[in-house]
């Protein structure tokens, strides 16, 4: 049970003179329960790629299989796919439209044709999962703060009970607290429900702290697909395509160069701290 992407390519505006190759021969396998970070520079094709996974964009060539079924088959139920692969767009708070938060979250499950009771049950559960205070449920979504609005929008997708949750730059434009709230909420979701999560970002710190696998895109090509430690070991190549390793990686390398025996593969602040303390203790003895 997984998503298999087989050599998909996508070209924008074929035959108009404004042709642009957004994706070229991208292949990968996304397993159940994985927590994946998708990183790349602006315009690298990340957003186009994730829109393929729930069938919003149809690849110019190549195949995608969801749980073994070809999603480009004529009789494949796209609506079903969209409920299984939940996609949260960039700035999702801009899609809110209902008069109160609860109704807005109900929109997704209602479209699935569920009974009223089931719809409301799912909406409550989704709002609880994103950690929104109950006294806000019947307020207008436009009265909330940026981070709260975003959590409502994520709940709107979660209420469809997707098996895969894709978040496109969920932290863009949020303050540090809003960012931590969203990311820890996603992390908790992943741990509690076992849902597959794909996190699109260009902040290495965000990605390094949470994911177990990283895919790097550049100019429509998937250039790296590996565990975070392996990816950030290639920091020179990352810099060439306009990305960088987390800041601690650089500090660790400098410390090592300065003669302190630390583990240069540390990518989070917690790991770095442990490694530095251990090295200092060893140096004392």
């Amino acid at each position, binding site marked *: 049970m997984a998503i298999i992407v087989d050599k998909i390519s996508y070209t924008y505006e074929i035959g108009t003179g404004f042709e642009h190759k957004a994706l070229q021969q991208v292949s990968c396998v996304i397993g159940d329960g994985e927590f994946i970070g998708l990183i790349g520079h602006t315009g690298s094709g990340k957003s186009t790629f994730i829109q393929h996974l729930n069938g919003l964009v149809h690849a110019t060539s190549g195949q995608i299989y969801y749980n073994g079924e070809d999603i480009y088959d004529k009789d494949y139920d796209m609506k079903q796919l969209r409920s299984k692969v939940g996609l949260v767009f960039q700035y999702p708070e801009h*899609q809110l439209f209902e008069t109160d938060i609860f109704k807005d979250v109900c*929109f997704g499950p209602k*479209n*699935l044709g569920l009974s009223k009771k089931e719809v409301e049950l799912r909406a409550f559960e989704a709002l609880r999962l994103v950690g929104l205070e109950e006294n806000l449920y019947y307020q207008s979504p436009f009265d909330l703060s940026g981070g709260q609005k975003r959590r409502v929008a994520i709940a709107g997708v979660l209420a469809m009970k997707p098996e895969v949750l894709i978040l496109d730059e969920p932290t863009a434009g949020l303050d540090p607290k809003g960012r931590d709230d969203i990311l820890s909420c996603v992390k908790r979701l992943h741990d509690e429900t076992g849902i597959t999560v794909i996190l699109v970002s260009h902040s290495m710190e965000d990605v390094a702290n949470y994911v177990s696998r990283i895919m790097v895109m550049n100019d429509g090509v998937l250039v790296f697909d590996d565990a975070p430690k392996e990816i950030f070991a290639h920091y020179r190549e990352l810099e060439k395509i306009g990305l960088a390793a987390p800041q601690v990686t650089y500090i660790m390398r400098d410390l090592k160069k300065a003669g302190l025996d630390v583990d240069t593969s540390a990518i989070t602040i917690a790991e770095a701290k442990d490694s530095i303390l251990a090295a200092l203790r060893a140096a004392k003895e």
Partner: protein
Amino acid sequence: MIRDITFGQYYQTDSVIHKLDPRVKLMGTLVFIISLFLGKSVWLYLGVTIFLAAVIRASKVPLKFIVKGLKAVLVLIIFSAAFNLFLTAGEPLVHIWKLTITKEGVYQAVFMVVRLIYLIMGTSIMTLTTTPNHLTDGLEKGLGFLRVIRVPVHEIAMMMSIALRFIPILVEETDKIMKAQMARGADFESGSLLKRAKAMVPVLVPLFISAFRRANDLAMAMEARCYHGSEGRTKMKPLKYSRTDKAAYAILFAYLGAMIALCAALGGRIV
């Protein structure tokens, strides 16, 4: 999805027509429309065709691109052709069921279709070769004399350029919101007309909100740069006629004069 509307779009390339002063192009469009409605004669239309073909050639915009813009008005063209074909009184040619096609009807229909097509092609040449900013600059300067009778020319031009500038942004925004709602299971393609209209609510509400938000931001940004209307405002690139522009004016008026002369010589004859 909705990105393939070419009518009113700018086509980036380097040609004589692109470099012309927008006022010349505005005047040219006006002259072209006048010549199109001068009379109903095959010779007259031949002249118009040659002029239009020459301008399209000089503009370096692919013909395919211009023709694509006609798709939007195809229904209108078919309707006006049908009405003229069947409802014009005169010498009957063919009877089909209760409908009669007359000789005059055929002429009328053909002229109408040609007129409509040329009208759209001619005007789209202007928008295809002129950036919206340039166009409104030209309008502002070209209609500047109206300020004497207290028409707020600058304000109107500014509103126009903002409106034009926002079309692609709003199209993109619509596309994005539609996709976002589709990801939440919204369905815009099936069901009755009423159901489909209702399905647009989740798109229109966010679209309106974002349009207002953008308008707010823009107003704030303009104010932050001390925008206060036309009084005493100078341009970084003021419009100035070059020699090519003067030559273009000469060609335009020679063309118009020739067409009027031709029309007078032909009298009311069609062929």
